[in-house]
């Protein structure tokens, strides 16, 4: 590494003071309330903004230096991946389904986070917070760009990558992540920090970026590992910012505790639902798996989340309200969602498949209490339908949750044989939910969620239920981008090209 360390320089604490605090000033011809009009309406009380400090004490000069180094490393690997036919080094083209979901649903979330942090960087009244939020805004747009760039190489060879922006706006499963970020961006600056900085980054992104990216390495996809870890190194800073922000809120005034607790309850549950898609990526979509969703949850959910909430207990914070229901869902959610993705695969811009016997044995070993009892019989029946030449497609479309927007595929926390149906009536309209957690979020601020653009009802409002018209509108090529992996062009091409790459035919 060719980074020079300066001979003599300011120590970190002094430099942080000079390059953050000292950039601020006391306004003289406008009041602070006029300059920062959004810091009070959420009810948070802040007495001394200078108490907020970035524990990494990162300043802009160091930020640019280290980010530039990360970019150099990233592009060296992306170039090598492209030059070395990296798209043929993956284990199996089934793996690409996980990448397609990532590109359609997660990368746009990075861009949304960029917009959100650019906004709250302006809205917060403290200089330390402003600088940290500005850095995070730049990080997030870097993540969106590097992810799109890394995956663009696959777009040259495989289907389903070509219209991720249309998918982001229009397809049904991406609205899960989009509504999460829209909800956060439509909130005030402090709630936004809890939503993204705390719940998403601290409690949840470890589950997305760490074991999944390690899985990408296992599956030979160095391009994805590199964007994943390069992004996650920023996330380490973001998590720290999120945790710092929550401690700051709690230390500033005891009246802030109930507000912060409500946000933690809300955003934990919203984040947990977004992670549902990640659970299927880990358990079903990696041809070679590092660990199961359950094992990742033990490490990053139970152990790490548990440590965090024990630490915050000194402020009076308790674990989020949905914590126990989340634990009960862990051994079911990936199976429930993958069964859904398979039966609705005519409407997905990625392929799905029936797990092989070997995959089912792995799932049964990882989920001894649930897989053989509840899910293997369903997969076996689906396998029988496919063998009979009548592959299973569910054209019933799906009832969606008014809050998280996922199809209502989840079962009662204490009864895995019964779908969890929750509903409420607000101003004469009926609304449906997948869980108590989602209904609680709705009932706290119903006016916000009654406007939700739910993709399935929208299909009947906007395309009058015409699935062909809908596919054209979402840029989904029927028989090309969607359906079963078995028999797809992706499968054919991967096998043929890999054969060409490893022989002299």
């Amino acid at each position, binding site marked *: 590494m060719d980074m020079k360390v300066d001979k003599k320089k300011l120590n970190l604490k002094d430099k942080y003071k000079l390059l953050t605090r000292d950039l601020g000033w006391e306004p003289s011809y406008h009041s602070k309330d006029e300059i920062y009009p959004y810091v009070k309406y959420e009810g948070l009380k802040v007495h001394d903004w200078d108490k907020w400090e970035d524990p990494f004490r990162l300043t802009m000069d*160091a930020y640019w230096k280290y980010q530039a180094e990360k970019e150099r490393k990233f592009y060296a690997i992306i170039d090598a991946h492209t030059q070395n036919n990296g798209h043929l080094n993956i284990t199996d083209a089934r793996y690409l389904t996980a990448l397609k979901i990532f590109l359609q649903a997660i990368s746009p979330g990075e861009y949304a986070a960029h917009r959100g942090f650019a906004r709250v960087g302006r809205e917060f009244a403290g200089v330390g917070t402003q600088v940290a939020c500005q850095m995070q805004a730049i990080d997030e747009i870097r993540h969106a760009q590097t992810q799109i760039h890394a995956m663009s190489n696959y777009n040259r060879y495989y289907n389903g990558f070509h219209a991720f922006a249309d998918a982001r706006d229009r397809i049904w499963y991406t609205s899960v992540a989009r509504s999460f970020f829209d909800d956060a961006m439509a909130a005030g600056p402090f709630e936004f920090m809890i939503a993204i900085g705390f719940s998403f980054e601290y409690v949840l992104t470890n589950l997305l*970026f*760490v074991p999944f990216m*390690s899985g990408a390495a296992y599956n030979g996809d160095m391009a994805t590992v590199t964007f994943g870890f390069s992004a996650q190194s920023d996330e380490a800073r973001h998590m720290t910012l999120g945790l710092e922000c929550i401690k700051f809120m709690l230390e500033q005034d005891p009246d802030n505790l109930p507000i912060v607790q409500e946000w933690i309850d809300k955003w934990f549950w919203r984040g947990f639902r977004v992670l549902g898609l990640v659970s299927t990526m880990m358990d079903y979509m990696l041809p070679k798996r590092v660990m199961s969703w359950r094992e990742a949850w033990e490490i990053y959910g139970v152990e790490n989340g548990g440590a965090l909430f024990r630490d915050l207990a000194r402020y009076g914070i308790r674990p989020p309200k949905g914590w126990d229901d989340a634990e009960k869902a862990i051994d079911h959610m990936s199976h429930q969602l993958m069964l859904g993705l398979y039966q609705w695969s005519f409407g997905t811009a990625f392929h799905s498949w029936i797990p092989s016997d070997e995959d089912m044995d792995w799932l049964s070993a990882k989920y001894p209490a649930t897989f053989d009892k509840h899910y293997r019989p369903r997969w076996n029946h689906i396998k029988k339908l496919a063998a009979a030449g009548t592959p299973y497609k569910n054209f019933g479309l799906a009832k969606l949750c008014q809050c998280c927007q996922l199809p209502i595929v989840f079962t009662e926390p204490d009864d895995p044989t019964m779908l969890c149906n929750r509903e409420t009536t607000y101003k004469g309209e009926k609304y449906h939910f997948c869980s108590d957690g989602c209904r609680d979020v709705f009932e706290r601020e119903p006016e916000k969620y009654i406007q939700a653009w739910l993709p399935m009802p929208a299909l009947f409002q906007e395309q009058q239920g015409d699935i062909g018209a809908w596919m054209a509108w979402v840029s989904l090529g029927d028989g090309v981008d969607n359906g079963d992996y078995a028999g797809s062009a992706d499968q054919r091409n991967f096998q043929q090209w890999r054969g060409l790459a490893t022989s002299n035919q």
Partner: protein
Amino acid sequence: MSTVFIALQANEETRPIIDAIELDNPKAVVHRQPAMVKIDAPDELVIRKQTIEEQLGRAFDLQELQINLITLSGNVDEDDETLTLRWNS
């Protein structure tokens, strides 16, 4: 007891850093996973500039950790000499 951890990319730059962390934290447990190394420790983990420099054989700015960092957990406190991760529970 709560576990703090730090995860670093597995590469030539981090090998001596991981050695230094092991030297400074006898209770740390090192897990090697594909492309990454995760180091767990009970309640507290201390990363010292001086030990890293000894292992690395050159001057090292602790903020260089940012380049190969994947993730961490615990409350962070960083100055010129040390980076500490700690749970208060």
